[in-house]
């Protein structure tokens, strides 16, 4: 598919084309940065209010102690997954189109996981005590942490994921930072030279680099599949109806990749426009991203169906009652938003016209992200409100604090992403050169054409 892409540019245009534009982005960039920053400020204000007044401002109370914050946590971890999928799994599959968007996808992963990491800290209230409770340290009774607890698994999974994603991303950046170093002077050159570890681009360095990159991709592949599985065990290992199902790991992973692919599209389209990257990120590459979104959307659709089927087929009345209530009860609104946004709207992507229309696809991708947020909310809240004890049943709605901190996390995510776009090559320079026509000599090209004619 992408092998037949017609490039109008050659490898000689890459560094000039991409790096020059980074130096002077369109005014829209500054508007977006300011908007993102104001959302961060909004989030900080409401978080400060929560720390001052107490957790009561969040409406979290028995039986729902996991509300919007854990929804946000799962949502952001999920967003991160497409980055690793695109950079590691598609690398192993040799999907060439990934080379144009993998850098943005990896950056998205890093900032999404950092955003996710904020939420357990916000959620514990007195976050200055959190490292003590979460790290494997003996407590006052000299007990160690319980390694049978999925929450401890989660700490290990998320911190490993963040570290490995950072390494993978930075490793990819090293040769590109060297390219920037070689075009700049003075203090800038010094800074980029330092950040690129003095990369010289010798054939030996590339040889070890390629091998290392392959191994990192091979390590990151099981990691990306495991991280959201571990996140899903935070729920599935409990006995709560609606959570206690074996389908959760694959279902969460598919959902994570769906929301992540949609988010990659949502990010790459404006960035491509702001930094004039149309000659490098071609329409075909964007379409491939949409195809991946469609694929994962159908998997998610199937998982929703199977989840309902199993709830009914299990013969477990509690499980079935909960599922029936999800679709018709007080949280039906969330359920139907989730179904329409994740399952039905993406079906429009079967049409090539829709896939190739960037504005329509962009809007559908936004809807998918809305739907995926609602999915997590639906899973977490509608299961918690009604457990085995009808006397403790309750109701939960998000408070303004939750909502504004959630918006703040979006601001935080976009803010860092935009900062990254300004200072680092948002398209991987060395990798996009690999998928462009190779710089063969005219003699060889002539020979190949002659050979082809025979």
């Amino acid at each position, binding site marked *: 598919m992408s092998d037949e892409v017609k490039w109008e540019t050659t*490898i*000689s245009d*890459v*560094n000039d084309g991409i790096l020059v534009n980074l130096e002077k982005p369109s005014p829209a960039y500054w508007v977006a940065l300011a908007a993102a920053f104001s959302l961060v400020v909004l989030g900080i204000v409401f978080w400060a209010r929560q720390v001052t007044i107490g957790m009561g401002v969040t409406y979290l109370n028995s039986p729902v102690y996991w509300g919007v914050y854990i929804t946000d946590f799962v949502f952001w971890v999920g967003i991160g997954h497409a980055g690793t999928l695109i950079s590691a799994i598609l690398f192993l599959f040799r999907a060439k189109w990934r080379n144009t968007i993998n850098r943005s996808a990896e950056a998205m992963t890093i900032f999404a996981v950092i955003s996710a990491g904020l939420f357990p800290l916000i959620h514990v209230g007195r976050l200055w005590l959190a490292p003590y409770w979460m790290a*494997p340290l003996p407590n006052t009774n*000299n*007990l*160690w*942490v*319980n*390694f*049978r607890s999925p929450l*401890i*698994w989660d700490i*290990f*999974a998320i911190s*490993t994921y963040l*570290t*490995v994603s950072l*390494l993978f991303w930075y*490793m990819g950046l090293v*040769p590109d930072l*060297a*390219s920037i*170093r*070689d*075009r700049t002077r003075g203090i800038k050159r010094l800074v980029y030279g330092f950040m690129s*570890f*003095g*990369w*010289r*681009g*010798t*054939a*030996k*360095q*590339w*040889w*070890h*680099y*390629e*091998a*290392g990159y392959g*191994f*990192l991709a091979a*390590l*990151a592949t*099981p*990691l990306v599949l*495991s991280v959201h599985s*571990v996140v899903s065990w935070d729920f599935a290992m409990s006995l709560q109806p609606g959570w206690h199902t074996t389908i959760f790991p694959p279902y969460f992973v598919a959902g994570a990749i769906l929301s992540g692919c949609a988010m990659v599209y949502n990010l790459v389209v404006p960035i491509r426009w702001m930094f004039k990257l149309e000659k490098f990120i071609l329409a075909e590459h964007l379409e491939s991203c949409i195809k991946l979104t469609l694929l994962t959307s159908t998997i998610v659709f199937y998982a929703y169906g199977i989840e309902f089927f199993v709830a009914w087929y299990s013969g477990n009345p509690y499980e079935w009652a909960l599922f029936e209530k999800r679709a018709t009860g007080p949280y039906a609104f969330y359920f139907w938003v989730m179904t329409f946004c994740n399952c039905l709207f993406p079906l429009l992507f079967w049409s090539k016209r829709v896939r190739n229309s960037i504005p329509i696809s962009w809007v559908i991708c936004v809807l998918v992200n809305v739907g995926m947020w609602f999915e997590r909310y639906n899973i977490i809240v509608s299961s918690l409100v009604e457990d085995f004890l009808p006397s403790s049943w309750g109701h939960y709605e998000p408070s303004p604090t939750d909502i504004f901190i959630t918006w703040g996390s979006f601001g935080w995510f976009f803010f860092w992403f935009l900062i990254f776009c300004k200072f680092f090559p948002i398209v991987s320079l*060395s*990798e996009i*050169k*690999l998928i462009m026509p*190779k*710089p*063969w*000599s005219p003699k*060889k090209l002539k020979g190949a054409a002659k050979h082809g004619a025979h």
Partner: protein
Amino acid sequence: MARTKKSDQGIIAIFRYLDVVCDAIERVRERPDFEGHEVFTPTSYHEIEHACGFGSSPVRFFTIIGALTGTVGGFSLCLLMDWDWPLVVGGKTAGLPSLPAYVVIGFECTILLGAIATILGMLVLGRIPNPKRRVLDPRTTDDRFGIFVPNVGLDSPQAALLKECGADELKVT
């Protein structure tokens, strides 16, 4: 003084085309008078790797050692804490480790240390960071290939051979 350390003094030949530089590498790589030469490439073309005659990179030993250390470390972490102070749940016998639960920790540590060791391997084997070496030609991180030969001048037979191989430009570094 015999030069045992790598030096940046010498000549660099700049090439524009991938096939031309590959032919040149194949011609010079075994010659004793090109001892210590270095090839520069803007990205990791496999043609160059083949022309240089590289096999499998030893980075793989770093990866496997790191990963196995992680596996052992992850399981040990859980098991030692379990033996130090068993958390007895549901009356189960203390001292019997719940290995399935520890697989997660073992797995995560495997990936973590494997990845860190891979990066270290790449840095150590690629000899970076090395503040003593400098960039010989900024174009080699853009769109040109280069072959560097240490300790020779522009009037040397090595320079003549590189020119014959189709170098676009030769210069003293």
